[in-house]
């Protein structure tokens, strides 16, 4: 699993465009604290941006919880996005490159998954979606 949660656990509500920017900044700060390389910082911030926008656009808003984690050997950043939106009916389809239900490029979920080390998607149709991602320092 993802190891123990370190200090600096922060929650950011996602209700508009500006919040997406705030999530990016929070994740950037956590990634720097966890000593991720510049490329890995960029990857996890980009993934967070995609997922935060998903939460906003498809989930109708929600929140992102950002924390640093430690598995004893390496440190990392963990971000959990949750919303109480309509949920995802077909997860496989949603994770397919190029599939979109909302006029985007269809790279949000599938692309974000490629940018992180751990990716967990929990969704219940009609109740909401939670996506948890972890990026470890190399």
């Amino acid at each position, binding site marked *: 699993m993802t190891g123990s949660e370190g200090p600096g656990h922060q929650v950011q509500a996602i209700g508009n465009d500006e919040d997406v920017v705030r999530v990016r900044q929070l994740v950037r700060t956590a990634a720097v604290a966890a000593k991720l390389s510049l*490329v890995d910082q960029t990857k996890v911030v980009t993934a967070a941006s995609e997922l935060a926008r998903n939460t906003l656009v498809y989930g109708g808003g929600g929140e992102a919880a950002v924390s640093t984690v430690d598995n*004893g*050997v390496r440190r990392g950043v963990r971000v959990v996005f949750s919303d109480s939106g309509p949920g995802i009916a077909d997860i496989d389809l949603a994770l397919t490159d190029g599939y979109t239900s909302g006029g985007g490029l269809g790279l949000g979920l599938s692309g974000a998954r490629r940018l992180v080390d751990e990716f967990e998607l929990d969704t219940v149709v009609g109740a909401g979606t939670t996506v948890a991602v972890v990026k470890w320092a*190399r």
Partner: protein
Amino acid sequence: MALKAEQSERLGKLLSDRSEKISKRWAEVAAAPLKGRLTVAESGRQTTELQVQLQKSLNDGATNLDGPQTAELRAVLTELSRGRARQGFTATETATSIFALKTALYEIGEVEKGDEKALRDYVAWSAFIDELGLFSFEAFSRAREHIITEQSEQLLELSTPVVKLWEGVVAVPLVGTLDSARAQVVMERLLQALVDTGSPYAIIDITGVPAVDTQVAQHVLKTVMAARLMGAECIISGIRPQIAQTIVALGIEFGDIATKATLADALRHAIRRGNAGKREA
């Protein structure tokens, strides 16, 4: 397995009553298998430090190695294991130094002459010392892993020079087996060199690479794509026939990426393209 409170107390008492004798015997037993690589005095300093911390933990009522009472003991164990790992001792040699306490306790505590209770105590203490040994084993492995990572990072630094060959042309000559981690480092360095030198051409020379697998080929492809996104062109040179066969057999699409037989051909190509651009402009 945790000690019973009274067993912890009795171990503490034995350690404090016979402190010097145990300390001396522990140091001797611990040093024996190290065959002079550590003197009795040196190994004694380490075991005595452990003994002091162990004593403290037991006085504070520690019955296992998890609680806050043993934090310092754990720190000392970690320090010892880390030091041994750096000095090139094996994990067994390190753990044996800790297990030596069992011999010392057995002899000094005169377990053989004791009753059933004494024997029970000794079994429980042994289990506790095993816990210390395992902890040091873990710490040792972590330290070794750390050393290996450090060394491989240093190796990476050495093995991936990015050089400026010409005005506007940088090159990275790859030598040896390319694993995924190294390919990634090469990629990042090459791209950074493009920015630093303002070079629109990059040559990846793989003359010295004996074999490529799908993953490495993918990394090279990704580098080329990333360079394009940044506005630079990559040329791959020195592809050997076997590697060309692998690339085709693996079904990897090199598409419209420029490939040249030698580094010299690639450089000529880059300079020509660069000049063509300038003449037009």
